[in-house]
């Protein structure tokens, strides 16, 4: 059974109170546990909001200016979809009538009187965690449905150098990702790319992949592509500023990198590294910090790095023990311990500059090849705004991907472009990431979306049920 990682899903809570000041403490406490909070002051507003937002919890006062929590319960109970919404009631006055009305209905919980902050949080978290990610939840794990999923996004092969294949796309790729690149034009065969890096220019993101690891039938068209002569091949761009407190390690690394025609400038302290960066930023091809501690010198270093002129600022690689650091176009994390291959590949990618590549691509007149990146994944669940899937590499929040699954064929276009909202490492696996995605299209309500999903799900389950033996 897959566990949804803590912090992956943001819960929506609707507060319904008679007086606005009653909501202030609750709002603050709920924000603390990263909930999205919407406060309403009447039953009418609450019902409108609930049907729009499909909250994971409603916290309501028992008596309201235009009704009561009992009325709210009855209205939601009568709704096919929203009846699953848990309601937590605060019985403020504790009168006989108030209690009688409440006791006849199945609320998720009660507070008798204004609750203490701790009591409030314990109860709220208990209710929120009783449903996996949301009360509106389709669990692929506990069904017999095939959870295999195909995750894809589009890109355009723009060229190659001696060492790197360049693909322009709308998303950063992770070094741990193995992606199949399927050209739109069937005359070109697919390729498998891995160990990706990213760089950015005014036009967007360029993903780079070491040519040596490009495999598949399409390798033939990759080999035939004209090779771009970027500045990365020149000596002055192959100088590495290396910070490492260990002299011995630096000496050994310098000896190794010499064989790859990379010159290493060692700085034993971050202050010396900062001074070297200040002195000649444009003479450096790349910076590699073997480690970056959380101390004063690193704050100073960051200041120097961030203030160095953007046009000449070299990309930076940071060695890390954490599994959660994610690389960006300017700062790349290399997870320790690393092998020589991944290190050289990352350095080679860092020596390239996006502007330089773009200029050379334009000069070459190469038309490019449109491709779709594809990777296998596992669909974990669907809910009112999207769902959760798992992949073997992290995706970048904000990027857009296409999801392909037999279930989604019943809802054409709905999952063609979903937004990566949040990512968290799967709690029980080192190399698996859970992705929270949003599939809600502009102008579509959550209830409509959920209705559609529920219907498609029933149809999908029916069509996948094995026929009874005759």
């Amino acid at each position, binding site marked *: 059974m897959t566990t949804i990682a803590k912090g992956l899903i943001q819960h929506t809570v609707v507060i319904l109170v008679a007086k606005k000041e009653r909501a202030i403490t609750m709002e603050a406490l709920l924000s603390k546990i990263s909930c999205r909070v919407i406060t309403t002051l009447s039953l009418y507003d609450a019902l409108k909001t609930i049907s729009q937002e499909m909250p994971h919890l409603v916290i309501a006062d028992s008596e309201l200016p235009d009704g009561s929590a009992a009325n709210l319960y009855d209205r939601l109970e009568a709704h096919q979809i929203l009846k699953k919404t848990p309601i937590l009631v605060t019985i403020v006055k504790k009168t006989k009538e108030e209690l009688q009305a409440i006791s006849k209905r199945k609320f998720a919980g009660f507070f008798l009187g204004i609750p203490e902050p701790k009591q409030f949080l314990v109860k709220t978290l208990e209710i929120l965690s009783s449903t996996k990610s949301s009360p509106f939840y389709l669990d692929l794990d506990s069904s017999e449905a095939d959870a295999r999923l195909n995750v894809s996004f589009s890109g355009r092969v723009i060229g190659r150098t001696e060492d790197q294949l360049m693909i322009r796309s709308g998303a950063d790729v992770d070094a741990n990702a193995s992606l199949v690149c399927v050209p739109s034009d069937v005359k070109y065969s697919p390729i498998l790319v891995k160990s990706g890096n990213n760089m950015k220019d005014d036009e967007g993101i360029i993903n780079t992949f070491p040519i*040596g690891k490009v495999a598949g039938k399409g390798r033939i068209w990759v080999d035939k592509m004209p090779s771009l002569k970027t500045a990365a091949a020149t000596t002055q761009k192959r100088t590495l500023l290396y910070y490492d407190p260990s002299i011995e390690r630096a000496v050994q690394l310098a000896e190794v990198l*010499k064989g790859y025609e990379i010159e290493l400038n060692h700085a034993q302290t971050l202050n010396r590294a900062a001074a070297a960066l200040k002195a000649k930023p444009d003479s450096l091809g790349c910076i590699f910090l073997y480690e970056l501690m959380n101390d004063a010198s690193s704050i100073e270093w960051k200041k120097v790095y961030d203030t160095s002129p953007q046009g000449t600022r070299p990309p930076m690689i940071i060695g890390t023990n954490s599994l959660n650091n994610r690389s960006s176009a300017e700062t790349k994390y290399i997870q320790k311990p690393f*092998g020589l291959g991944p290190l050289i590949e990352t350095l080679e990618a860092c020596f390239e500059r996006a502007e330089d590549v773009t200029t050379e691509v334009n000069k070459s007149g190469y038309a490019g090849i449109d491709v779709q990146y594809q990777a296998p994944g596992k669909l974990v669940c669907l809910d009112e705004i999207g769902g959760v899937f798992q992949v073997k590499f992290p995706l970048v929040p904000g990027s857009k991907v296409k999801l392909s699954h037999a279930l989604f064929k019943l809802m054409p276009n709905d999952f063609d472009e979903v937004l990566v909202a949040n990512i968290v490492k799967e709690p029980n696996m080192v190399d698996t990431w859970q992705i929270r995605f949003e599939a809600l299209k502009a102008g579509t309500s959550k209830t409509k979306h959920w209705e559609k999903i529920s219907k498609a799900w029933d149809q999908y389950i029916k069509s996948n049920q094995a026929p009874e033996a005759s």
Partner: protein
Amino acid sequence: MAWKILIADFMKDPEMDPFYDQLTEIDSEIHFTVSRSIEDFSVHMESTELVSLVVVAKDFTPEVETAYRQYQQHIGCLPDFLALICDEPNPRFMVSVFEFGVENIMRKDQCVEKLRTLAEKVKTSLADTSTPEHHAIKLALGMKTSNQTLIAEAGNAMRTIAGEDYRAAYVAGRALEAQGVYGEAELAYRKACSINKMFRAGSSTLAETLMVTGKIDEAVLLLEKLEKSNPRDIARKSTLIAAYTEQGQPEKAAKALAEAMAINPEHPKLIEAKVNVMLAEGKLAEAFNLIPKMENAGILFASRLNDMGIQLSKSGKAKHALALYNKAHKIVRTDLKYKLSMNCALACRRLGDFEMALKYLARCKKEFGRSYEKLDQLIIATKGAIEMKAKNSSEAS
């Protein structure tokens, strides 16, 4: 079929014990086996179930080198099936294991999860009959059991996709080498290295194959280039010493030998290097004394001894040639033994000992795994010679 992932822990690291206990639960189809001594390790290497190797080490010790080298000899260079457990390898260690294709390095505290991933990768790669790993294991099985059909099947499958993946080209090269087709093996290795310029194991093997096919100058250029990124690889230095010797550059060979001695005078490959220099200098007796100390000699040394034996045999010293071949047979790699048995048979024929020649030919067939045209012809001719000899002697008596 169940597959074996071998964990070589020559340090007998007690910190690893709790992790080993957890490995049994990872996958029922993948068996993790821990080997704590080089003797035990060598026994596991012979297993036909062995597919993947993980070494636990802090530094590049001779045992670590032996482990990866034996894997390379038995199975090849499969980067996705190789790993190292080491919390903080220094750059020299990183570059040394990279020579064998090791890029996957894991921390001790994360090793159970990383090994789970490795097991998954092994399982899926071997289940897919189109992967280079699937055919590399098939080829290894063919080489271990002297099954030429398996060797040819793996080789043919990989030759068709050699242009698409450096690993496929490398496996094709190994299969061709095992079939004795060195010219074509050279082309396959060239392809592997042109696809992936950082494929060190492929480049080193290409250099050895170039020596066998007589392209000594090109081999020297390639080896010198590889020396720049790692001058501490003694096995490769030993090939370079042989290449310099072959090129007629004794000073360079002596310099390289001295460098290698300074790094590790006990390295087993240094004996091969010394023997090469002695043979070139004509110090045959000294060289012959050292030969029995060698082990797992590759194609390069085998072909050199082969050439020497042929020269001796042709110059009427067939007895010497036979002695040389028999010595060489004991120290060359298993997949090369059949060639020496064939040469022993040829030397016996020159000596007129056809019965003995027939025994060597039978050994050759067993080692190769099946018969082949030249072998069949020679068996028929030898049997004919025995019959003729018997007929002649009965007539004479």
